[in-house]
């Protein structure tokens, strides 16, 4: 196995790649057709990233590729060569839950839990760009993540919980936060903007 990423020859069906997942380098000789989600689950052994629909619809397989959420069932592992991946396993640090994990716990943001890793990774990326999202912005951001249990209400509350925690604002939610209707664009959280 070569250490350096090799520019594949035409005709070569395997490629040597190095992908950094949650700060750890993973090197392997992979078939070019290997999907990133299979690389993460089977080669790197990180099974927190789920395979749901396998048709780019459900978002259970969402990971962050260079800080952007992507559906890892719709990307080849070779395309992640030399790049940074974050998965749900990288959220908890030193035995401390990430605020988004804490939010899903506190606000009952999951029932069966299958969609949760993807939901959380999409939400983490949202909060890194938008520290004080409205409920509508959260709903937009997770519109490519399907949940068949919760009806999304508690997921929105969970993300708002994490947003408050990440902003260092432990105050109670403002009236209506997490209960806004999707079409209601009124911002309820601007007071705490970072």
């Amino acid at each position: 196995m070569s250490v350096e990423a090799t520019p594949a020859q035409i005709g070569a069906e395997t490629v040597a790649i190095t992908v950094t997942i949650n700060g750890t380098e993973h090197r392997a000789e992979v078939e070019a057709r290997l999907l990133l989600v299979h690389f993460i689950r089977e080669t790197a052994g990180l099974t927190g990233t789920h395979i749901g629909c396998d048709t780019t619809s459900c978002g259970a397989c969402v990971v962050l590729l260079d800080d952007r959420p992507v559906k890892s069932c719709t990307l080849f592992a070779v395309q992640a060569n030399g790049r940074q991946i974050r998965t749900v396993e990288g959220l908890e640090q030193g035995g401390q839950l990430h605020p988004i994990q804490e939010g899903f716990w506190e606000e009952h943001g999951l029932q069966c839990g299958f969609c949760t890793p993807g939901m959380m990774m999409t939400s983490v990326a949202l909060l890194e760009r938008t520290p004080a999202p409205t409920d509508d912005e959260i709903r937009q951001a997770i519109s490519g993540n399907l949940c068949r249990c919760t009806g999304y209400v508690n997921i929105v509350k969970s993300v708002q919980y994490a947003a408050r925690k990440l902003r260092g604002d432990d105050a109670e939610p403002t009236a209506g936060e997490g209960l806004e209707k999707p079409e209601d664009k009124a911002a309820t959280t601007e007071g705490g903007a970072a």
Partner: protein
Amino acid sequence: MIPGKFAYLAARSVDEAVDVLGRHPDEAKLLAGGQSLIPMMKLRLAVPEILVDVSQLADLAYVREENGHLAIGALTRESDLESDALVGRRYPILADTCRVIADPIVRNLATVGGNLAHADPANDHPATMLALRAEVVATGPNGTRTIPIDELFVDTFETALDPAEILTVIHVPAPVEHSGGAYLKLERKVGDYGIAGAAAYLVLGGNGTVQQVGIGLTNVGPKPLRARDAETFLVGQAPTEENLRGAAERAAAASEPVSDLRGPADYKRAIVRTLTFRALSRAVERAQNGGAA
């Protein structure tokens, strides 16, 4: 689902990609954002023997105004076009379009060039680019050429691009004073193909009448459609509700929907009528509030 085997090349330049496509016109396929191609490969609807990955050619990802047009690098991600400040200010029709493509996560990988070159009549940028009378630039073994948008779409999944040509840039004419555009789509749910979509772009003359208009339709024919009769009807007319409805009626008549899971053909035609009217109305509103595409 596992795609078929292929040989993979991460192209380091457009020239390198063109060279491989030229030597393997029947076997090689370009991989850009991959959000249409990879699902097709997983279903084995596409089984390319060679995949030329251009997705990381950073010099093809940009949005800038130059020489009287907006130049969009073909590898610009939909999410980047959607959040681009210049696009938001001057080309709201493009932001309208990006916002309804697939879902926000898919848009982080999906490219504007791919959305056009894939030539799926259900894709959204084709109708918008038809309305805007955009041009695309293709690079091939003999250099570059410009293709007017009306000549790009040949049939379902088929464009005027030669096998060894790569769509590299899209040129959208810069908005003039009193111009405006809008794109609307009806979809069953986020991420599904649209039931139908309508793009409208128009320029109002000094006396307030419609000087120029473009209307493009999504997913109501074997390829993206231009509603020519509707355009002809509207030019020289005042943008009254009655006239906009008259144009929308003609757009509905020009559409060629087929009955499927997303509804019967008559229903889709009715949707085209409604969406075209609303897109035209919003375009007029934007045109009257200044000048933005």
